[in-house]
């Protein structure tokens, strides 16, 4: 299986009150092509930090991150930007949108950076993705003129625009109610079915239950991992139960 991302012995620390605190204590993790992974753990256990490190947005203190065979330590700022733009998509908990641009512009922003010429095609593609995630018609709205759920979907559209090999979601459903949350997960499943790897951070057992590999973190370490078969709607309750049991087992 082709490995998209390899993290080896990642150590990441932050200075707090003049003292270095290790947030990641030598984490190793691999993500394969087309995988559907979720990352669970208590608040402050380093989930976001790990995700930022794996995506090259944060520089690690020691250890290595390799994306598609490229060691990030040897990549220049511009190469990192290229990787972020072409290899991965990001969905954050809060909708990270530029308030100056309307929904459509926010979605196409990462794509038009390189592709000045084929704007018509880009817009066409954006519209078809918007249709897929169910936010057709919001193109010209300001980001303040749509609901949180719609904004989050727009975020997914933006993440999908450059046909990424992997999509990261840092608690993408965290600010949504359970109805929207499930719809969002349908979307991620669908994306995953099209061979795009997905990695989600979540607190929600119902969200984790939709994925096929669950990593459990505590105090900056991956302490456990469990795998589930491909998702079928009828197994939902069993899967949730399994995740809950596992969570209780390791005490999170």
């Amino acid at each position, binding site marked *: 299986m082709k490995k998209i991302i390899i993290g080896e012995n990642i150590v990441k620390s932050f200075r707090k009150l003049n003292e270095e605190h290790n947030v990641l204590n030598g984490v190793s993790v691999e993500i394969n092509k087309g995988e559907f992974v979720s990352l669970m753990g208590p608040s402050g256990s380093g989930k976001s930090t790990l995700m930022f490190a794996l995506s090259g*947005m944060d520089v690690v203190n020691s250890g290595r991150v390799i994306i598609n065979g490229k060691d990030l330590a040897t990549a220049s700022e511009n190469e990192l*930007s290229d990787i972020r*733009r072409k290899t991965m998509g990001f969905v954050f908990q809060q909708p*990270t*949108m*530029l308030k100056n*641009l*309307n929904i459509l512009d926010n979605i196409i922003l*990462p794509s038009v950076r390189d592709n000045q010429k084929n704007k018509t095609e880009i*817009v066409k593609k954006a519209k078809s993705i918007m249709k897929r995630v169910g936010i057709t018609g919001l193109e010209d709205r300001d980001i303040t003129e749509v609901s949180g759920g719609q904004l989050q979907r727009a975020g997914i559209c933006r993440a999908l625009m450059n046909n990424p090999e992997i999509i990261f979601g840092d608690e993408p459903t965290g600010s949504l109610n359970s109805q929207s949350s499930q719809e969002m997960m349908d979307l991620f499943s669908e994306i995953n079915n099209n061979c795009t790897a997905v990695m989600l951070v979540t607190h929600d057992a119902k969200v984790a239950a939709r994925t096929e590999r669950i990593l459990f973190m505590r105090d900056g370490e991956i302490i456990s991992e469990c795998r589930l078969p491909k998702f079928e709607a009828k197994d939902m309750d069993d899967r949730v139960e399994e995740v809950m049991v596992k969570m209780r087992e390791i005490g999170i």
Partner: protein
Amino acid sequence: MYNRIIRNDMVKSKAVTLTTMIFIAAAAMLVSLAAILAVNLSSALDTMMTKAKTPHFMQMHAGELDTERLQTFAKENSNVEEFQVVEFLNLEGSEITLGENTLAASVQDNGFSTQNKQFDYLLDLDGNIINAADGELYVPISYKQDNLAEVGDRAVIAGKEFIVAGFLRDSQMNSTLSASKRFLVSEGDYKELRSLGYIEYLIEFRLKDPSKIGAFETAYSTKGLNANGPTVTYSLFKMMNGISDGMMIGVILLVSGLVVAISFMCIRFTLLAKMEEDYREIGVMKAIGLRVSDIKKIYIAKYAVIATVGSILGFILSLFLKEKMLENIRLYMGQSDQSANAILLGIIGIILIFFSILIFVNNVLRGFRKISASEAIRFGTSQDRNRKAKRLTLSRNKLWNTNIFLGMKDVLSRKRLYITMLLVLVIASFIIMVPQNLYNTISSKSFIQYMGIGNYDLRIQTTGIDVKDVPKMVDALKLDSDVSSYAVLTTKSFQVKMDDGSEENLKVELGDHSIFPIAYTEGRAPEADNEIALSKINADELGKQVGDILTLVKDGEERSFTMIGIYSDITNGGKTAKAVFTDDDEATVIWTIIPVSLSDHSHVEQVVNEYTDAFPFAKVSDIEEFVTQTLGSIISAVEMGSYASIAIALVITILITSLFMNMLLAKDKYQVAVMKAFGFTNTDIQLQYITRSVFVSIIGIVIGTLLANTIGEKLAGLVISSFGASTFSFTVDPLDSYLFSPLMMIGATLFATVFTTWRTGKINISENIKE
């Protein structure tokens, strides 16, 4: 919570706080300086003119003097307090050697006098009346300024040796604008020199009631007394003495106005940016019931502190600088006795600035009231996006590079914020353009048309006495192969009949005015015998307009003329007229001017020398030399000023641009982080910021240029009109104004932006986005 906001604000915006303070200090310093200088100038001027007992009315006269009639007039006119006739012994510049230097190239009329008995005293540099001993020579102060002489120098005047014993202040002729300069020697020495030059008379009066000078002038001219030469009154002496320092004060005031405007812009930008940044927090405060006025109080308190420190700093600076700035006034006019009042006025000026700042802050803060609590909490941003900018979408943008587009869109959708920066850049380009255009204009060859001088190479001037020798000169000019054309312009004195029947003197220049045409503000040059044109000042004083009828009286005979044109003139006090009729009476000739143009301009120097030798009684000058010496000090002052302005404007541009870009970057951290998260490189983001600042600066330059060519031209015209020139338009050097200056401005903006925004690389994505 208040304290936290303020503390954060102060710590985060150290640079802005400091810059604002610096601008306030600069404004305070300039206003205080202007006030101090103005009070000292007027007081020193008064002191000098009082000590010197400057005449209220002075008539220069060349030719026979009718002393008896003058004495009778002085006795009979009830307003005359004192009367005297002073001799002014004209000597060629080449006869005067001071130390190593000769005055041969001087276009001034250099003359010698003795100390006066009753009034019009020549003063030493301590303000005392000079008593020259035999062998002592006192030299006009302006030659000290030009470094032509030093105390103790040997001087040779028409072969006679003197020692330069000191310098003198001449309340009449101090200014370089005055065409004559007086040297002072002892009575004995004067007697020896007297036969070596030719004598002009200064007929001087002190009046009991100086406010009735108008009536006195009329009385003098109707009596037909000696009047073969310029007439000058007390107020004109005062104006000439004060004008160069007065202009400097004017410029300082203008600059201080601009600096105040810039400090306002800094404050506005900071507050608006703050408001955008703290939008959510202010909304929250409102939501939990805190009062807006409480929030406002904090900011006002903060600016009160900044303004106080700035004002005090500025005041102290002005006290240091005033010494240097007062040097010129002290040199030409002496000490003022109003130093305390001057400082007081400076303080009042600063207090005015202080309060206007607080009022301004208060006004900007009104925007706080508009913040809606619910909007602020829900979106953390204000909703008043610009409608037009909304239509500018990336999806429809086909023309621009994405980064350039984003930069421009940001400017257009946050107009309120960028207008502040725009105004500063408008001011900066205005500051560059106006002095530059003014300098280009007054140093251009065509500027002399505003002086009432046509376009020619040299000018030969003779006084009325030598009128009989003019034909000889004309013959010589006729035969000279170097000469391509010349004109003989004879100035004679006539009486003008006023509407109320009274008569006034009018000097009319007769001859062919079509050979060396000058610029007419209105109408045209006289062509027919019954046409006359007036200089701007004369037209204003006589209340005549183009088309009016003017009646001249000569030997009791009246002649009517149609007023045909108005022209600018800054020669001879600006009071001249032009006509073409013939009048053969040589007795009334005051002076004759023969403008000459050469077939080869490079021969000027040689031709000047030839004619100076051949006709020693005539004053032959290279016109460029004439202009440089008359206007030279002003031209070089304006040139210096224009370089200083460029430097100031560029510093302002760099300072303000980096300040604003820095603040924007701090404010936009989140947005930058988002873009970086989605694969925009640091270079991309830098390009966006560069677009913003260059876009704003281009608009600023365009507006600044337009303003400079309209308002700036008017302002400069005001300055020029004080010399008697009327309509004035800039001679613009397109290369300087439309290429180099804009490039310099854009370069400065670019430099500041690149320099400031390399920091984008330091904006960490995770720190700014991670939840």
